[in-house]
């Protein structure tokens, strides 16, 4: 695991094409990082961590394509960069996605089912199931037009479930959540991205 130097703040980027990027910038700063927006491939230089925020995955996929960011982000992650995708960001990191598919980055071995719980009136909050990975117990999760994570591969560790379904998962340096840690005060997911 890469170690952050004593006293030096980790440098984190948030993809700024569309969505809740401002909330993630604020959460990363509160979790102890120096955070900035990423819109061009040069913005990845020198980053320790990257967040793909919630928002609309189709909008972000169009933007990634126009900006030529698919390959640079893949290369950056393959070189060991830590990456977190929340909601739409999780869809973009998946191996593939269902229900109006978009082009994904394929950085975590699972499939995302878009809008799997329904429309906005089906959005909900829930406390995660009692069986949780150490450090993530009793997390309150906010789901907004959320996707579901399906068929996780053998290298994927499911860290949290709600009603038995995976909502937080990790494969090496790639972390995905179907809920929105940036909308609450709980910084454990952002800290896991920066420091675990």
């Amino acid at each position, binding site marked *: 695991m890469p170690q952050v130097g004593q006293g030096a703040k980790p440098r984190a980027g948030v993809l*700024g*094409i*569309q*969505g*809740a*990027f*401002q*909330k993630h910038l604020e959460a990363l700063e509160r979790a102890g990082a120096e955070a900035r927006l990423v*819109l061009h491939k040069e913005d990845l230089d020198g980053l320790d961590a990257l967040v793909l925020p*919630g*928002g*609309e995955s*189709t*909008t972000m996929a*169009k*933007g990634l394509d*126009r900006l030529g960011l698919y390959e640079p982000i893949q290369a950056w992650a393959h070189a060991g960069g830590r990456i977190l995708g929340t909601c*739409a960001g999780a869809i973009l990191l998946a191996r593939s996605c*269902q*229900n*109006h598919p978009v082009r994904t980055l394929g950085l975590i071995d*699972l*499939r995302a*089912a*878009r*809008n*799997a*719980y*329904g*429309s*906005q*009136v*089906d*959005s*909900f*909050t*829930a406390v995660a199931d009692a*069986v949780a*990975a150490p450090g993530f117990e009793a997390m309150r999760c*906010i*789901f*907004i*037009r*959320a996707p*579901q*994570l*399906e*068929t*996780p591969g053998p290298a994927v*560790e*499911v*860290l949290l*479930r*709600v*009603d*038995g*379904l*995976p909502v937080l998962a990790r494969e090496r340096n790639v972390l995905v959540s179907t809920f*929105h840690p940036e*909308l609450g005060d709980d910084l454990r997911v952002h800290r896991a991205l920066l420091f675990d």
Partner: protein
Amino acid sequence: MTSKGNGPGSNGGGGGGGSERTGAETFELKIGLAEMLKGGVIMDVTDAEQAKIAESAGACAVMALERVPADIRRDGGVARMSAVDMIEQIQRSVSIPVMAKVRIGHIAEARVLEAMGVDFIDESEVLTPADDENHIAKHDFRSPFVCGARNLGEALRRIGEGAAMIRTKGEAGSGNIVEAVRHLRSVCGEIRGLQALQSEELMSRARDMGAPYDLVRFVHENGRLPVPNFAAGGIATPPDAALCRQLGAEAIFVGSGIFKSEDPESRARAIVRANTHWDDPAEVMAACRGLASAMEGIEMSTLDESERLANRGW
């Protein structure tokens, strides 16, 4: 941990605990969806074909309506909630959120849209008001609402009623940005003004603005609205989008500006691009390159006060 995820094809409706959630939780979820729309462009569409064009251009949501504001203005008559079948066709054709408009104060139209699972309801001055005294009590609904405002007092009154997103009224269907700019400057300027007050001065300011005291205090303490603040009304070009963002809007609505222009598809893409890169003039310039003509605009002084949609609601 435990083994595999759920099998394929298990997309059940209805998230956990939906029916038992509290009012505060519901409001948190409504604002949450508004947060997800930030940095995006919401486009007016009148059929499934236009909705697909908007989605593939990078819109973060579409607003389903019967006629774009420019046509409502031209045709006159009573403008109402869109046909249910048309909204359903649009819901089936795209995966991004679908919004739709109801007349100001029309509780029953809003219940219909809620029953349809529309993602956001716009209680809009673009349609003919159903109630010229009262707006809808929006906290009573599970669906989130967006409302127009010309100034901070109006914005806080709508939030007090339960709006989870505020947009400027601008002057819909005019192709003229001047009113949206006036409303943004007014909302953002009044926010700065409230921040500078001392706490003893807040109650009399709340009285003068006709706004709920607790929301006035929130703005004083936080320097922002308690819900996302978007721009709408008269946006027709990529620099119009960039201007609204510079003035403090967190996302934009484009109504007639796209499908009343010569080449909607490329204009939609250009406005999305300028909106993402609003503070990068080189990108905004690139977005403008090669565009066909924008919609025709209306000079404000030629619009009689009675023809101004922004004057509907209070």
